[in-house]
């Protein structure tokens, strides 16, 4: 599987689980129970976007450490955007609750994409004349 595709799949799957984990974090919060579908869909979309960006970057680097750090940065940035959108919508922004898992999931996607994704094929050299 190519790195961007692996990032997309992994980001999406982990996004679903990350969204569902809201039920575990706040099992008695009626707002979360009512909005769980939206949370899961939003989390999945965020995961997919994170995975594709990290997969794109993983094709361009040879360094695992760079892949993991980039995953952390993208995960934090996108999760931060979600928190800001919550704030702008007048909801209480869950910065830590969203950004911490988002950042670590970004690192996991960065690691897995770099390690298990198939590198892009190299361009063939011109034939010897």
């Amino acid at each position, binding site marked *: 599987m190519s790195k961007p595709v692996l990032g997309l799949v992994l980001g999406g799957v982990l996004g679903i689980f990350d969204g569902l*984990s809201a039920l*575990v*974090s*706040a099992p008695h919060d009626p707002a979360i129970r009512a909005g769980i579908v939206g949370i899961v869909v939003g989390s999945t979309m965020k995961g997919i976007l994170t995975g594709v960006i990290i997969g794109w970057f993983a094709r361009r680097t040879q360094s*695992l450490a760079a892949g*993991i750090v980039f995953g952390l940065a993208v995960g934090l940035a996108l999760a931060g955007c979600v928190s800001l959108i919550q704030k702008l919508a007048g909801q209480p922004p869950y910065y*830590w*609750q969203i950004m*911490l*898992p988002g950042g*670590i*999931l970004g*690192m*996991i996607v960065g*690691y*897995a994409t770099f*390690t298990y994704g198939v590198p892009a094929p190299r361009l063939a050299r011109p034939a010897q004349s």
Partner: protein
Amino acid sequence: MTWISDRALESLRGMADLPDFSGTRYDIEEEIGRGGMGVVFRGRDRELARDVAVKVTWWPGSDVEALGAEARVLAALDHPGIVPVHDVGRLPDGRTYYVMAIVRGERLDVRASRVSLSDRLRLFDRVCDTIAFAHARGILHRDLKPANIMVGAFADVRVLDWGLARMRSEPTGAMTHVAGTEGYMAPEQTRGIADERSDVYALGAILRGLVALEPSSRALRPLDSIVTHATADDPASRYPDVQSLAADVRRFVDGHAVEAHREPPLERIARFARTYRTAIALVLAYLVMRVVLLLWD
């Protein structure tokens, strides 16, 4: 009376020992190696303006057939791990020579002492690849040892000294003399018998030397088992071919279970944890962080 220094005398002596290459396109510069069959000199091909190595038999008439056979073996093996032969000829004094590309680098054991275990195993894999190629062409090396393996600046490996190499199809009678180097020579070679598994034995002995540079550790047990399997006294108990040996070493490098080693459950868990330590650490970090957030709320 004129006195000359010891150094000048040594230099004159060396020049007197150089074979006479007048009438050929090669200039001979200095001796760079000696083998059972002849001497290797650094030389220069005047027509192509490039440095070459020239192997010359010890004296006129000696090992003419053997040197010719070695040159033919090398010429038949077109592989990055094998030195290409450029030319074969005879000198005015009757000695035979062949010309090959000059090899720059250092011996495998010298390089091995300066690099990590994984780099050593990567070099070993390249040696195996070269020998597997020769075996696929029906040729046995029969004298593999660190001194016959050179490593270049870019970790490129060259297997040298194919003087004892023979076609596998050659009748056993042709190998009645003992050929090889003690410590690396398979037991059956002392009886004049050799096949691919004899080279597997020598490669196992080379691998033993590469592993021995590492402090003893539980994590190296699979490698020890690979060495034991490759250097079994009975050829039937060894890896059947070089590819199988190389594949098992690659399994070790990739953190997978090796065929030669029966792994107890605890050792398997430790290997799994070592191989996937980064992934395990990240997943644990995620779970710990989730628990912390749960308790915090």
